[in-house]
C-alpha cells in the first residue's frame, strides 16, 4: 500500500512540472520577443473600474469570518471522526449507532446554540 502512495508522489512531481513548464514557455516566448513586454505605470496600476486606487487594500475585515472559522473547526473534527466510524460500522453495529447518535446530538446542541445566537446570520 505504501507503494501506492509513492505513485501519488510521482504524480505530484508531474503536477508541479506541468504549470511551471507552462509559465516557463510563456517566459521564453517573451525572451524571443513573440510575447510583448511594454510595462507602463497606468498598465501596472491596480484595477478599480478605471479610477485611480484609493487607500490601502489590506484593511480590517468583517468579524463574521472568524465565527465561521470557529464553527468550521468544530464540525470538521466531527467529520474526521465520522469517516473511520462509517468504515467500521458493520462491526460496531448497535453500539456504534448509539454512540454516534450521542456524539452527533452533542454537536447539534452546539449548532442550535450558534443558530440561536445568530452566529449563522450574515450581516
Amino acid at each position, binding site marked *: 500500500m505504501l507503494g501506492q502512495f509513492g505513485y501519488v508522489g510521482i504524480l505530484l512531481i508531474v503536477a508541479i512540472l506541468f504549470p511551471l513548464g507552462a509559465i516557463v514557455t510563456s517566459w521564453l*516566448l517573451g525572451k524571443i520577443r513573440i510575447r510583448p513586454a511594454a510595462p507602463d505605470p497606468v498598465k501596472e496600476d491596480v484595477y478599480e473600474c478605471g479610477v485611480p486606487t484609493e487607500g490601502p487594500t489590506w484593511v480590517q475585515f468583517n468579524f463574521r469570518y472568524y465565527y*465561521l472559522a470557529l464553527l468550521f473547526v468544530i464540525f*470538521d473534527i466531527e467529520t474526521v471522526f465520522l*469517516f473511520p466510524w462509517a*468504515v467500521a460500522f458493520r462491526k460496531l453495529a448497535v453500539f456504534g449507532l448509539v454512540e*454516534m447518535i450521542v456524539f452527533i446530538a452533542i454537536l447539534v446542541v452546539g449548532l442550535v446554540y450558534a443558530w440561536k445566537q445568530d452566529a449563522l446570520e450574515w450581516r
Partner: protein
Amino acid sequence: MDWRDFYIYHLGKVNESVRSWLSAHAAGWTAYVVPAILGAILLLVFLLPSQLMVVWIERRLIARFQIRRGPNRVGPWGLLQSIVDAIKLLSKEAIMPRYADKWPYLAAPVVGFIPAILVYAVIPFGPDLAFADLNIGLLYLVAIGSYSVISVFMAGWASSNKYALISAMRSVAVLVSYEIPNVLALVGVILLAGSLSLTDIVRAQSSGSFTWFITVQPLAFLIFFITASAEVNRTPVDLIEAEQEIVAGHHTEYSGMKFGLFYVAEYTSILAACAVMSTLFFGGWHGIPWLERYIPPWIWFIAKIYIFFAVFIWTRATLPRLRIDQLMAFAWKFLIPLSLLNILVTAVEVLLIDNTTLAPAVWMTLLAVVNYALAALLIVAWSRAFRMPRRRSADIPEVRRLGALPAETPSY
C-alpha cells in the same frame, strides 16, 4: 476471440504487462517507476484534450441556452477555438500590479493547479485503471480537494486589489462552509460500501450485490451535487468570482498564462467533481449490463463525466446567483442538518440490511422507495419550517420612514 481480451478494453492490463516485462528484463526500480510515468501520461492524455473540449462544449451550450450561436469561426463548428485561445494566452503580456506581493502572486496559479491534478490519482477509470488505489481514497480526495482554497486566497490577497481581496475572503467563507455538508454527504456512501477505497466503492455498486448508490442515497447525492458546485465555483453558488459584483474575483489582476493556469485548474476540478459523482453515486465504470460487453469500462466512465458536466452547464444557464447571506444560511441551516439526518437514517438502514431475511432485490427496492419519499419529505418540511423571512421593502423601517428603498447594505 472476444473483444474483451484486447488491451483497449482493459487499459489497466497494459500496466500489468509493462510491469511484468520490466521486472523480468530490467532493473527492479524501473518496474515501479515506468508504469507510474505511463499512468501519468495517460492521465494527461485524457485531461488536456478534455480541457479544450470542455471549454468549447460549455461555450457552445451556454450560447444555445441564451439563443446565441457561440464560437463558430475557427475550424468546423468553432472546434479549434480553445486551441487558439491557449496560444493567445501563452503569448500575452504578463502584467503584475505595482503593489502586488510578488512571490505569493506568482505562486498562486501553480499552487492552484497541483491539487486539481492530484485529485485524479485515486479516481478509478476502470476495474484496475486507478492511478493509485489508496485504501483511504475518499479521505485523500477530501483532503486534496480542499487545498484549492489556499491558491484562491493567495491570489486574492497578493493582488492588492480590493475586489480580489473580497473574493479571497468570500472564498474561504464559502468553501469552508460547504466543505462540511460535502464531507457529511459522503458518509452515507461509506456506510453502504464499508470502505474508503474508491475501487471498492465502485465494486460495491456492481449489479451483483447493490445497485448504483443513487437509488438508495438520493438526498446525499443532491447535497453532494450542490456542495460540489460550490467547491468548484459553478454559477448558482460562485460568489468567489461573481462578475457583476467583484469583477473577476481572485484572478482580476492575472493575465496571460497565469490566468490560463487558473482557468485550466478550474475546469480540471470541475471534471474531477463530475468523476467523483459518477464514482460514488452512479456506479463508476459500470454501464448498462447488456452493453457492457461491447463498450469498454473507461468509455462508460468518461461518458458519465461528460454527462455530469452538461448538467453543471445546465444549472449554470438556468439558476440565478445567490446572495452571500442566503448562501451561507443555506449551507449551515439546510444542508448540514439534512446531511446529519441522512447519516443516521442510512446507519439504521445498514443495520436492518444485516439483520433481514428478505431477498436483497425486494429489500433494496423497498429501501429505494422509502429513501426517495423521505428525501422529498425532509426537503419540503425543512424548507417550510426554517424558511428565511421574506423581507418586502415595505417591511423595512427605513423604507417606511424615508418613503424610498435604502441603499443595499454591504454584505461582503
